[in-house]
């Protein structure tokens, strides 16, 4: 079996395929609460759409696609 000796200096090199990310500004606690409690008609439509995308029983709870 061929044995390759890896110099210790090479072992310290960082991975090159890790993305350099921007800093995330997560929502503060009270901001998260507001974010969750605010619920627009558009979001209500998006909720229906998300359910219909993934669930099998499309009309489970009066989910009707409408423009409003």
């Amino acid at each position, binding site marked *: 079996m061929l044995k390759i000796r890896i110099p210790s200096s090479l072992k310290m090199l960082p991975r090159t395929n890790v*993305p350099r990310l921007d800093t995330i500004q997560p929502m503060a606690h009270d901001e998260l609460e507001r974010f969750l409690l605010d619920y627009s008609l558009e979001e*209500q439509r998006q909720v229906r759409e998300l359910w219909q995308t993934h669930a*099998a029983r499309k*009309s489970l709870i009066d989910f009707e696609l409408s423009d409003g």
Partner: protein
Amino acid sequence: MAKQYGYLPDSLTYVSKAGQRTKAVSSSSIKLDVNRFARGVQADLRRLTNQLLHGQLSAQRWYDESARVLKLSYRATADVARGTQDDMTHEERQRWLELALALLLLLNRAAQAINTGAFPLDGSLTAYIGSLGAANNGLYENWRLEEANRLGYREARRVLTPADHCRDSKGRKGCIELAALGWVPIEQAVKIGGATCRDHCRCRMEFRGKTIGLVL
């Protein structure tokens, strides 16, 4: 799209209203649909995270979009558990906030760990965020558990769905052991998410022993 399924909140059951006849839709059937929905959301979140890891999405955009998907999915699941998309009552809003906030704070924790470099930017991040999508299963069951408690049901039991289930480990009870307990007083029922499998849990809960005429 006509309404085909009605919901009876007093008994936490669904009924099919197709044609002239009304028949019950089994809770296991509803649960299968919630499971399917949760798997779909899990896949959406994994896709988003993979875009982040491949440099196709900024970290802030990843956070914002993950939060949006989680909020919408949790709301969909809560509405299925409630049996309606009508406006929530004050009590429902408080219950919704408690359940959804606990999960969104886990997204925050991941974001903060990414900022400090403590969270490895690899498949473990994908799996972690995916588990927040899987948590839709738990949110659905825990909503129903609180509703059953409010309605005066006295006992609950954990039922294993067709899936791999966990065992006791590192101080946490396993779903297999919890299901083996059978009926327990409802206040002693371990919430979904509290077992070894945490937010990956796909168990469902059943309730009985409702006191007729109970005044709360």
